[in-house]
């Protein structure tokens, strides 16, 4: 390995910046655990009984729960806290990125030039950046995934990478910057299908690659590719992977028109990607997945659980992001009929997979393995990253 500086951990934060970040992490934890628990208590003990008294039944969907909760001080407070914490997450890392942007860019250039791990980076200045990315700053990250301020810019990649650490920082050791989702899916597949030997893997909407790396770790013989529309994400991701010594192949391509050959990949995956697409785009991308997949290959995407898989109250909690986190397609995505949608892309009904995969890092090994053998463990409840919903199918 060469001694290029690692964009993934070179950022120096000043004392007060670190302190601001720690505050945001702690604040978020409190909101998502304690205040969320309080809100459930108030719902169970006050709001739902009131609703039942008035209507003679329980709320039938998340919309009704929300209407009933909308003006409860606990909901207003929880929402306002969550909203501010979201915004402050990015603010807490922006000044350090601004200050050290030239260093970050230089480190990324050095990594690309030396290319010690042997990965690759293919940028296309003519890529069509979809409205899903340009219309709103997704997750309230100012500048979103694609904005470039200077030549060879990696600023947004850095804000995303370091901001994500603050975002998950309150949840302790279980959350690693190197992708829990991908580690869970890859290990699950390896255990569930020991004879399956993928040669080529594709991750859609890979951002900076946090959930692309682990495929290479679990399947070291495979070639791992990631596509995204955001150049600053890919530059950052490529430099990070090279410094970590993991060969990754990143391409700036739109998943609606990814352009790889037919029957090309053994695994096509993604994480937290589809809920950001419009429904027509989702359908188009799924068709492309089917086309690019080799016969005998698998498509398996991690996403939010469909509305029909979780209870009404949890749907109400999840849908919050759809209303307030600049994710306008979130609810329509969750309301899709997954079986029909996947079939619509070309998959045969009995080859469809809708699997809840336990989080690899925090699930006892035995339970994880039992889950991969198809035993009960997959019945774990959704929430707080204990289990990941995945959808897809074999070709």
């Amino acid at each position, binding site marked *: 390995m060469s001694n290029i500086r690692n964009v993934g951990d070179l950022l120096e934060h000043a004392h007060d910046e670190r*302190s601001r970040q720690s505050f945001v992490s702690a604040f978020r934890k409190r909101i998502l655990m304690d205040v969320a628990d309080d809100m459930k208590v108030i719902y169970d003990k006050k709001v739902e009984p009131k609703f039942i008294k008035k209507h003679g039944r329980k709320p039938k969907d998340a919309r009704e729960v929300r209407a009933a909760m909308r*003006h409860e001080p606990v909901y207003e407070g929880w929402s306002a*806290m969550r909203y*501010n914490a979201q915004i402050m997450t990015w*603010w807490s890392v922006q000044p350090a990125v601004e200050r050290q942007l030239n260093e970050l860019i230089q480190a990324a250039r050095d990594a690309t030039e030396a290319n010690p791990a042997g990965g690759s980076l293919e940028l296309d200045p003519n890529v069509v950046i979809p409205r899903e990315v340009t219309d709103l700053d997704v997750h*309230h990250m*100012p500048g979103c995934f694609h904005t470039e301020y*200077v030549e060879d810019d990696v600023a947004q990649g850095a804000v995303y990478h370091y901001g994500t650490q603050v975002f998950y920082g309150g949840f302790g050791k279980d959350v690693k910057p190197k992708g829990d989702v991908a580690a869970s899916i890859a290990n699950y597949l390896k255990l569930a299908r020991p004879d399956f030997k993928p040669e080529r893997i594709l991750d859609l909407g890979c951002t900076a690659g946090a959930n692309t790396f682990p495929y290479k770790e679990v399947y070291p013989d495979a070639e791992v590719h990631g596509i995204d529309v955001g150049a600053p994400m890919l530059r950052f991701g490529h430099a990070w992977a090279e410094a970590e010594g993991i060969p990754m192949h990143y391409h700036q391509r739109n998943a609606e028109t990814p352009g790889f050959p037919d029957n090309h990949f053994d695994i096509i995956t993604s994480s937290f990607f589809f809920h950001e697409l419009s429904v027509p785009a989702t359908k188009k991308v799924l068709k492309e997945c089917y086309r690019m997949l080799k016969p005998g290959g698998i498509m398996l995407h991690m996403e939010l659980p469909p509305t029909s898989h979780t209870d009404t109250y949890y749907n109400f909690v999840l849908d919050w992001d759809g209303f307030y986190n*600049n994710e306008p397609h979130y609810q329509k995505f969750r309301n899709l009929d997954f079986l029909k949608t996947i079939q619509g892309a070309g998959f045969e009904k009995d080859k469809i997979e809708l699997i809840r995969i336990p989080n690899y890092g925090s699930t006892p090994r035995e339970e994880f393995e039992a889950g991969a053998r198809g035993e009960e463990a997959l019945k774990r409840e959704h929430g707080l990253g204990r289990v990941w919903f995945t959808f897809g199918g074999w070709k």
Partner: protein
Amino acid sequence: MSEKSVHLPLRSKGKRATFYKDPAVDQLFAIITMLTQELSVAFDRIETVERILDKNGVISRADIEAYKPDEQEETERTQRRDEYIGRIFNILRQEAEALLDS
């Protein structure tokens, strides 16, 4: 190498959400949250200083009471306070910023 300095925007594109009947309450909420954060930062900083001083055995409370910053230091403090206020009250400026942008 580009040495141009970049200012990352603070406001995210899209409508700002409000949760209270009066949007002013949402703004106050944001301000108070930021204040809470800054106070937490100040506590951290004081604690850092106290622990270092304690470890090195140099602290005297009378010294702290009697301390007066010189002119240069006061300029720095003024700048820090100014930035501090700018950060906390940023929200009040965002509507105008959005209007100017559109």
